[in-house]
């Protein structure tokens, strides 16, 4: 029931904004949807798998850069660029995960962080592809079907459909055998091994799937802004994705999307609010305070709080 309502609101959103003459918000909403996908992918490893990855921006940024680099080389077809972005991010996740998952606890947090920084510096040093400045795309990917994605309406619905598809697949996965094993490993890794699960393999696959989805979200963000820059891979970006997940609710199905929406809306409100006057520039201050409050006093996140209320 609630899902239908959400779907209805999401579907009607651009029309309502158009009618109100606020088309800007459709573009903003598209950004929210893309970050919702990235946050949901992080929630898979972080919330369900219990792997505190502090380098998720690496896969997000890799997806974006791959689309941008292919475009710079003249390949703009969606059918080539996006699958390559997803595969590239998945491959990065495979390599990073294969090494990182040998470690545990803080070492895992630190090594994923270090790998993400490594990718960050690799892209910065690619002078041919923009270096520090990043890389602009000539436009959105071409579909080859006579539909142009430069129309913000079309673009919004495509992103919405992809997000819905990704969430549906994640939902199936989490309730299938694989998802149960992933959660079991989070609950008690020792015991999972003792009843015969090759823990490492499950964690690695989970990590790769999550990286692939983040890569898709990255491909979308590059299209959204027609730009891929190193900040997409910076560790602060990884931190932002984690904030989204924890704001929304770690290990809650809607945690990622809710957190992404809340954080981006907060950012928008605080950075554009006339109420704050000259302090609007300092929007990170209230965001930091809110994050601190949530972490200290509502560790279940907003999805957790909602679930508690409806019980």
């Amino acid at each position: 029931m609630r899902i239908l309502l959400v779907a209805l609101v999401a579907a009607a959103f651009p029309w309502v904004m158009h009618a109100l003459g606020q088309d800007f918000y459709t573009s903003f909403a598209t950004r929210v949807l893309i970050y919702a996908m990235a946050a949901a992918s992080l929630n898979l490893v972080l919330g369900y798998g219990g792997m505190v990855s502090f380098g998720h921006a690496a896969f997000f940024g890799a997806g974006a850069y791959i689309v941008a680099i292919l475009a710079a080389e003249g390949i703009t077809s969606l059918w080539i660029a996006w699958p390559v972005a997803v595969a590239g991010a998945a491959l990065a996740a495979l390599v990073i995960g294969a090494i990182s998952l040998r470690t545990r606890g803080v070492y895992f947090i630190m090594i994923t962080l270090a790998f993400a920084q490594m990718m960050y510096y690799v892209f910065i040093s690619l002078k041919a592809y923009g270096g520090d400045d990043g890389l602009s795309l000539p436009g959105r990917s071409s579909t080859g079907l006579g539909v142009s994605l430069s129309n913000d309406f079309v673009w919004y619905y495509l992103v919405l459909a992809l997000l819905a598809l990704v969430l549906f697949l994640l939902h199936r996965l989490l309730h299938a055998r694989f998802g149960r094993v992933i959660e079991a490993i989070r609950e008690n890794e020792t015991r999972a091994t003792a009843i015969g699960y090759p823990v490492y393999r499950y964690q690695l696959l989970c990590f790769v799937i999550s990286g692939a989805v983040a890569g898709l979200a990255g491909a979308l963000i590059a299209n959204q802004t027609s730009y891929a820059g190193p900040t997409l891979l910076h560790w602060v970006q990884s931190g932002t994705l984690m904030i989204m997940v924890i704001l929304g609710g770690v290990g809650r199905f809607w945690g990622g999307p809710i957190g992404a929406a809340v954080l981006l809306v907060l950012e928008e409100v605080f950075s554009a609010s006339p109420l704050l006057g000259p302090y609007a520039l300092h929007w990170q201050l209230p965001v930091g305070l809110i994050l601190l409050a949530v972490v200290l006093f509502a560790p279940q996140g907003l999805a957790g709080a909602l679930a508690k209320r409806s019980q």
Partner: protein
Amino acid sequence: MSGILFLEQTLNSLQFGLMLFLLAAGLTLVFGIMDMINLAHGSLYMIGAYLMATLAEATGSFWVALPLALVATALVGAALEVSLLRRLYERDHLTQVLATFAVILIANEVVRMIWGNQSLMLNPPAGLTGPVTLPGGMQYASYRLLIIGVGAAVAVCLYLLVTRTRMGMLVRAGASNREMAVAMGVNIRRLFTIVFALGAALCALAGAMLGPILAVQVGMGENILILAFVVIVIGGIGSIRGAFVGALLVGLVDTMGRALLPIAFAKLFSPPVASNLGPSVSSILIYVLMAAVLFLRPQGLFPARG
């Protein structure tokens, strides 16, 4: 490659490594004793540099401002520990990461509100602005030599503090087995506040010494924080000796990589390939080092526990 270049780069490595050690020393003790990830450590470095720049401006003297900045930053650190971080010791690492990440956001904005968006200038102390001639005829910036001297002196003091004093023994005991240390009567909370304040003062020292070389600006703590984490992970969390070895290693690999790899690549590859490959490989070298160390020794080089 000429001997002079090599010597110069060795000194640069040393200077960079020693400054990293100042940052990593506090971080590794905080990590080791309380099992706490503190991302806000970089913010203390930034705050230390800002306080130093302001105090140097106000007092007109680098040497008068330095102790004041150290004490002020230590107080900021102690206040942060008592008011917030204490609540996080019993929480999981994810919570610690996010809460201290929030502290970064807050600290950055507060610094912006107080000092504005422009970066601050911090001049090296009078008389140390020019180069000196080293034995062998090499010219080297005198201020950089000072950094090496200060860094080495602090490293020695810290080493003596940790290995020779009773407080150092208690700190090491706490880092390897907190409950047993408590059962022996160690007031871990107070000890930890002291360690934290000391760590903050070391951050301020690094910020103050590096201020004249790098820009004093918002966000300066973020990148160097990650390097400090790399150092302590390589060295083994909780180990001062590990932090020292790790810091020198990272300083050496990073500096030498940046200086020597492009030269090596220019000999091996065609110019366009070399000019692309050189910077990217050298910039990730320390991360490769860290991955390799963790791959072979998942607990770092000098694990404090077990």
